[in-house]
């Protein structure tokens, strides 16, 4: 291993944090032996059953798709079981990073400089800044915040959004008295998306900091955890990336609540299990993690992949690759087992989940290029393969079902007792692999009360778990169809666009969106059922749970996207809902306050930022001050004058986003727009502006405070 750089900590082994090879090897040998054994037994039983009358080509095909599926099932099963074992054994895990800190460490002041960065792209401004405020105040409460700086790194390409981000930044800094602590940076061109945004930060300011905490726009982290992460990094200079387990919070739809419940209950044992066998070669998930900046800058720049998108080009799922590059550079990538302090939000509806999966799928499939690249640690290759398999397995499952249907249509007699026994054993074994981890984790919760101490709540987790099994059973076949499509789309060259993730619904179910998205899946389910009816009634019965889920996918999508989530019956309750941590409580209080704010007309609200930058002298001044002055501009002055005139006489809706952006990038144009607007007679202006001049300062006394709660710090 090359000597790690970046840490200034004295008297500490520079490899601290890198698990000893002997331990890693033993753990992996144990884990993969179980996984391999399970897979071989499954494949062997399957072979015995299929080969009773000799193997046909279709039976070989079935066996081939069965093996990776069974391998994946085994990986999940053994990860969970190892996790439960680790959580319950009396002897502490020697690799537990929390054990590297002692009472003296906690008493020491933190002198390592840390940048907390939050890349954003057209996100809900209020949520971003209220989240940031909570993190900032939580960090302040630790008394160790002086060496932490915050950066909002914007790639937003909507003009109004951009201005709102700027005004919210200024107001937040003013309210928190945090000028010089919270910074805002807007890139002119969003080259290479999020990873490009982070790299841009590293190039400009990376040298100033020893560590970088990467957050997503919906991340929330407590000050206590942030300071502990820095202390762990200081004590373990061999760690390049330390990834926490972000728990899902703030869901208000059935899907969101089921997901966050499942994550709260099943997540910790899975994380413990992953930590057991991944050791120093864990994965980076792109956020809620701390990175050692010097090696990250030196070794983790992402090369473009050969060929064009979607297979090649810019690496979409950059985090796995950065983790592999960090490991290749000789630093470990570690998981930090956490149950509190690290949070994120999940997609609220099934459609939003699929949109996110579409991006992730393409990103993971791209890793095919990297699996065989030279120089990786073998575990990095395994991580890439598991990432690919997580989506390709859907296509394999689909093929498995299609082949099974075909075999049912061309049956061969099965009378050999050995083959029938193999079939029964395989069914039993598969059921065990699917349901045993859940049962064990549930029993663990009821006995230990890890999530909830009151017995009533522990028993309620039983009911919630039964119901989440129903929800996941209904959703899994639908996800299989979509993931299969995503894999095929990627292979045939249909790329994805970079879109903003929706994190909240506006309350109602969007039926048209659901119908358009799931009608084809329902039709497939009904057709398949009809086919199964003609093929074999026994087969139809066997496959009916899957076909039923497909046939009713429209209803399932509507059901899980609705706001009836069983909250009033105490179902799917998580520790964060039952006893919200301070950092979450603070954010939710502020978000509630803003919800009650007076709103302007929808058109003014839609273009709020643009309206303010043109009308308000202070917002205009702020925006011009933050723009970088350029000697030359990308477009001609005549063009800018023409679109400025259109903006004033026809309103913002007459300009497309490119034109609005061009206007907002030029200091002289933005300054002149302000005066031209105020100088024009009412009849010369578009109705939008005539209304705006009369109403724009009605919603709040300060244009800067419209998107933020009013929480002045005591002087």
């Amino acid at each position, binding site marked *: 291993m090359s000597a790690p750089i970046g840490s200034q900590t004295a008297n500490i082994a520079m490899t601290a944090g890198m698990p000893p090879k002997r331990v890693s090897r033993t753990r992996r040998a144990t884990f993969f032996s179980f996984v391999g054994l399970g897979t071989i037994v499954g494949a062997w039983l399957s072979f015995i059953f299929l080969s009773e009358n000799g193997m046909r*080509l279709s039976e070989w095909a079935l066996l081939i798709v069965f093996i990776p599926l069974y391998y994946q099932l085994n990986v999940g099963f053994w990860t969970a079981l190892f996790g439960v074992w680790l959580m319950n054994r009396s002897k502490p895990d020697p690799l537990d990073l929390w054990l590297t800190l002692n009472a003296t460490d906690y008493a020491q002041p933190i002198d390592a400089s840390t940048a907390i960065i939050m890349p954003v792209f057209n996100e809900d401004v209020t949520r971003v800044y209220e989240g940031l405020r909570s993190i900032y105040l939580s960090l302040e409460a630790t008394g160790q915040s002086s060496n932490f700086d915050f*950066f909002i790194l914007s790639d937003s390409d909507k003009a109004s959004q951009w201005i709102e981000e700027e005004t919210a*930044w200024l107001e937040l*800094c003013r309210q928190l008295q945090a*000028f*010089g602590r919270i*910074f805002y*940076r*807007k890139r002119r061109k969003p080259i290479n998306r999020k990873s490009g945004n982070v*790299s841009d930060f*590293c*190039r*400009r*300011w*990376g*040298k*100033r900091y020893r560590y970088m905490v990467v957050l997503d726009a919906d991340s929330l982290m407590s000050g206590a955890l942030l300071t502990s992460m820095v202390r762990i990094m200081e004590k373990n200079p061999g760690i390049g990336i330390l990834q926490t387990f972000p728990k899902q919070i703030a869901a208000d739809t059935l899907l969101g609540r089921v997901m966050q419940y499942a994550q709260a209950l099943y997540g910790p044992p899975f994380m413990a299990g992953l930590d057991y066998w991944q050791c120093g070669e864990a994965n980076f998930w792109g956020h809620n993690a701390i990175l050692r900046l010097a090696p990250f*800058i030196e070794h983790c*720049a*992402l*090369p*473009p992949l*050969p*060929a*064009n998108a979607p*297979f*090649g080009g810019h690496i979409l799922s950059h985090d796995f690759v950065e983790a592999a590059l960090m490991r290749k550079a000789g630093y470990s990538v570690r998981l930090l087992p956490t149950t509190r302090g690290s949070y994120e939000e999940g997609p609220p509806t099934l459609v939003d989940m699929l949109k996110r999966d579409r991006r992730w799928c393409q990103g993971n499939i791209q890793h095919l*290029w*990297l699996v*065989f*690249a*030279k*120089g990786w640690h073998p575990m990095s290759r395994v991580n890439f393969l598991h990432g690919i398999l997580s989506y390709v397995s859907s296509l394999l499952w689909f093929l498995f079902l299609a082949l099974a249907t*075909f075999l049912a249509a*061309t049956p061969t007699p099965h009378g050999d007792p050995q083959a029938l026994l193999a079939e029964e054993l395989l069914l039993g074994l598969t059921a065990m692999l699917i349901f045993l981890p859940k049962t064990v984790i549930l029993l663990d919760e009821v006995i230990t009360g890890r999530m909830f101490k009151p017995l009533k709540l522990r028993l309620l987790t039983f009911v919630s778990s039964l119901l989440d099994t129903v929800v996941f059973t209904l959703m899994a076949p639908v996800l299989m169809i979509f993931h299969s499509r995503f894999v095929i789309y990627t292979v*045939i*060259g249909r790329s994805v666009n970079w879109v903003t993730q929706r994190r909240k619904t506006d309350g109602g179910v969007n039926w048209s969106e659901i119908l358009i998205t799931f009608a084809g899946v329902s039709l497939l389910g009904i057709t398949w059922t009809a086919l199964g009816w003609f093929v074999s009634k026994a087969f139809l019965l066997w496959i009916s749970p899957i076909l039923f889920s497909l046939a009713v996918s429209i209803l399932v999508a509507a059901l899980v996207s609705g706001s009836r989530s069983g909250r009033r019956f105490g179902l799917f309750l998580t520790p964060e809902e039952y006893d919200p941590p301070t950092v979450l409580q603070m954010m939710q209080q502020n978000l509630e306050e803003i919800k009650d704010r007076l709103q302007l007309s929808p058109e003014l609200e839609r273009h709020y930022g643009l309206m303010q930058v043109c009308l308000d*002298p*202070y917002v*205009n*001044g*702020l*925006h*011009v*001050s*933050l723009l970088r*002055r350029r000697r030359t501009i990308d477009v001609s002055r005549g063009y800018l004058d023409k679109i400025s005139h259109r903006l004033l006489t026809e309103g913002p809706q007459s300009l497309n986003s490119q034109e609005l952006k061009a206007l907002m990038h030029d*200091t002289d144009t933005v*300054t002149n727009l302000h*005066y031209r607007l*105020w*100088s*024009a*007679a*009412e009849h010369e202006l578009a109705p939008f502006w005539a209304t705006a*001049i*009369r109403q724009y*300062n009605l919603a709040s*006394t*300060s244009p800067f405070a419209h998107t933020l709660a009013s929480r002045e710090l005591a002087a």
Partner: protein
Amino acid sequence: MEALNIQFAPETGTEEEWNEAYARLADYFRAYNLHNRIRRTQLILETLRKAAEAHAKEPERPPTAHAIEQARLMLLEWFGKIYSDMNLSEAQLEATGRLGFHLAGGPVRWPQFFLDEENMPEDMGEAMRSALRTSGPGMQISKMTPRDMDLGIISDVAEDTFDRLGRHPLLRYSVLLVIVLSVLGYLYSLFA
């Protein structure tokens, strides 16, 4: 504070036009969050008087345009005095001045001195100068360049194939069609 002189008798322009100019100026100064109504009225009248002189020289432009232009000139002059020691362009001066006044708490602390060149409080000027903000700390440039990565022999073969398929959509779909037809052909052979 100087006495309020409400006499205003423009030589050019209609009463309606000047009323419109008055209303616009009132809105404009309100946009500065100046809640001191007396100071706001003083400013409006002062600006209107200057606008009336300008309108007499250039009557083809409406009084509202003259009024806002005069307000802008007054602002530039005032900011110019406050930031006289800084080398700022006109657009920078306007932006910095407006932002500085807001961040210094000018609308609340010194509303009566807004655009008052004669009685400018020293602490106001100081507060406005020190309120200059930038969005990021000083840069310390690092190089972050990707290292060469040997993707292995498979990538060479795959790259050529993808490039070729990417350049020729017909070829891409033909490959897909061949695969689908092969599967269908196999199925047919089994049932036939």
